[in-house]
């Protein structure tokens, strides 16, 4: 129906189009490819750097062992809780390895493994989950923000830090990790928007592991993919197979380079799967089937790389054994050190609330000290 045909409409009337706020760019180059990017098992795998891939292999094996050890420590009561990343090791480890020393990692509560892969002492990385303090390391020393429990709230921090670094002329990139559920939070939106407006050197890595506790992705979003969300902010979105460590490495490296050279932020969705329950408190059988888990087992990140590397002669029996031995040694060391009771100082409760203790806190500290002394008598 044209204008003239509308009942009561007079002669078509012409208006000069208003001076408009026009879209600043074409959406097409920002759109993710609909299929997750893959390297392993494709012709692109011929280009793999053997030394780098052997390093990744060792890290993946170590990461898998770390997950198993941490889960065992929960069963023994040594950890209050452990959100496992079995099945997600490729994304966790690539996130850590693509960063340079001066860069910053902003992990979520699940991303202990990324922090460990970045070089953090596993015991320090587990302080939060063990319950002896909230953070077990100096974030500035390691350039790893505290593991963040409130979902997506670390994302604006990453943007602010990257922005500050750029203002100071430092070539620092911030890589922020978040889950698929976390993308529904307001802070996710605000962080992406700020990052794009400021062209901040940030890489947002969404690990889409299928669930937010029990809620599947389909109930989290109606977007075609989470990577598509980037387009609305004016940054590229990339969809990648999160279990393919070579693809993760490539896509992350490109995004980090883009950020470092002034190209602004990127949103990456790594499609992966959480093989274990959300945490030890969760019963995953209530919301997913064994068949689904089995199907993902066939797409295991460690196996994918091992198959590719052995087929290409990059890895042999000895290499595999070496990686496993190193992982065992790490696990034994972790076990031993975690079996020692952590030493906590109750007076620390008051030590770091303000730079200078308030009168109120001094009073309360004195009260606790007196209680402790009375107990000791």
């Amino acid at each position: 129906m044209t204008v003239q045909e509308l009942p009561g409409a007079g002669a078509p009337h012409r208006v000069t189009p208003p001076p408009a706020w026009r879209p600043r760019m074409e959406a097409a180059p920002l759109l993710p490819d609909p299929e997750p990017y893959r390297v392993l098992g494709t012709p692109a795998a011929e280009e793999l750097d053997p030394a780098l891939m052997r390093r990744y292999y060792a890290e993946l094996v170590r990461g898998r062992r770390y997950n198993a050890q941490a889960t065992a420590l929960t069963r023994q009561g040594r950890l209050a809780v452990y959100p496992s990343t079995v099945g997600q090791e490729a994304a966790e480890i690539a996130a850590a390895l693509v960063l340079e020393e001066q860069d910053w990692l902003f992990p979520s509560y699940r991303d202990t493994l990324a922090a460990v892969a970045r070089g953090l002492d596993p015991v320090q990385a587990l302080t939060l989950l063990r319950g002896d303090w909230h953070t077990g390391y100096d974030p500035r020393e390691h350039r790893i923000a505290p593991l963040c429990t409130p979902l997506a709230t670390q994302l604006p921090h990453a943007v602010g830090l990257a922005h500050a670094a750029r203002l100071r002329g430092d070539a620092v990139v911030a890589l922020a990790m978040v889950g698929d559920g976390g993308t529904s939070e307001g802070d996710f939106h605000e962080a992406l928007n700020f990052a794009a407006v400021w062209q901040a050197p940030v890489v947002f890595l969404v690990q889409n592991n299928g669930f937010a506790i029990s809620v599947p992705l389909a109930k989290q979003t109606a977007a075609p993919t989470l990577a598509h969300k980037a387009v609305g902010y004016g940054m590229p979105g990339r969809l990648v197979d999160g279990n393919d460590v070579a693809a993760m490495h490539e896509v992350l490296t490109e995004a980090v380079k883009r950020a470092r050279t002034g190209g602004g932020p990127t949103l990456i969705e790594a499609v992966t799967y959480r093989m274990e329950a959300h945490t030890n408190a969760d019963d995953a059988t209530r919301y997913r089937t064994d068949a689904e888990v089995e199907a993902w087992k066939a797409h295991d990140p460690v196996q994918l790389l091992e198959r590719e590397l052995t087929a290409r002669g990059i890895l042999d029996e000895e290499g595999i054994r070496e990686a496993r031995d190193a992982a065992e040694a790490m696990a034994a060391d972790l076990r031993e050190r975690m079996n020692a009771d952590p030493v906590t100082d109750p007076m620390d409760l008051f030590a770091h609330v303000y730079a200078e203790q308030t009168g109120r806190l001094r009073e309360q500290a004195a009260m606790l000290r007196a209680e402790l002394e009375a107990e000791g008598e």
Partner: protein
Amino acid sequence: MTTVAAKPATMAQALTRAMRDAMAEDPTVHVMGEDVGALGGVFRITDGLVKEFGEDRVTDTPLAEAGILGTAVGMAMYGLRPVVEMQFDAFAYPAFEQLLSHVAKMRNRTRGKMPLPITIRVPYGGGIGGVEHHCDSSEAYYTATPGLTVVTPATVEDAYGLLRESIASDDPVVFLEPKRLYWSKSQWSPEAPAAVPGIGKALVRRAGTSATLITYGPSLPVCLEAAEAAREEGWDLEVVDLRSLVPFDEETVVASVRRTGRAVVVHEAGGFGGPGAEVAARVSERCFHHLEAPVLRVTGFDIPYPPPMLEKHHLPGVERILDAVARLQWEN
């Protein structure tokens, strides 16, 4: 040294000057918020700063309070000192997740390794005929959050001195600006501002002998007026300005009440769970034997902030304070 003659200046000018001087002295100080650049903020408190320091240091952010405070956290992590403007009291609420979960706790979570020197300026309180969501007295939310310093100036001198201190503080400071005092004046010299006592120190603004009015921010001028009016009734009232709610200067308050034996706490925020409840409790605990009457409170009602035409019934005024003072003539 030449002394610069003080001339009448407003609290708004003193606040602007405080940011300007802090930015000139310390290149890590950054101002950010909604409309803080070309407009100078809706109250013009950041007026002229962008011209002097450029958009990298005085930044009009997207309209997103959680984003503003959340990015300020990251900037502070990297060594900057962000001064964040929240446009109005009730519009700071979207940022509360960042404020409560991160700003207030980062020092504690990291066992002192990562303090966050962020100043959050919040124009607060009523009395300007604003529509809803523009007049909240939100101080109790902040004072109930450990890790935050909460400061509120009531004079032009304090506006400058306390804001400089807040920006220099290694802890996050919620700097509550009583918006109805923005245009209050004083003889004050921006060239040679007089030093004022720091954060955490209350001041006796008027000495008196028969009772103490304890107050802060927008209610200070009201209390001073009430104290003048009370002279006719034979009351010589002392007026204590808290200046800083956290830390709370118990000593100055307690010393005053021990001298006068009677106390009334006055603020605009609702009484239930308001800062006055805390002050009254502390005074009762520490001055019990000196008290001639119970500690009374004169506060806003426990209601959502009323529409402009009714706000005069809500805000504690001279009459209500005098009524409370009359009740201090306690006979059991």
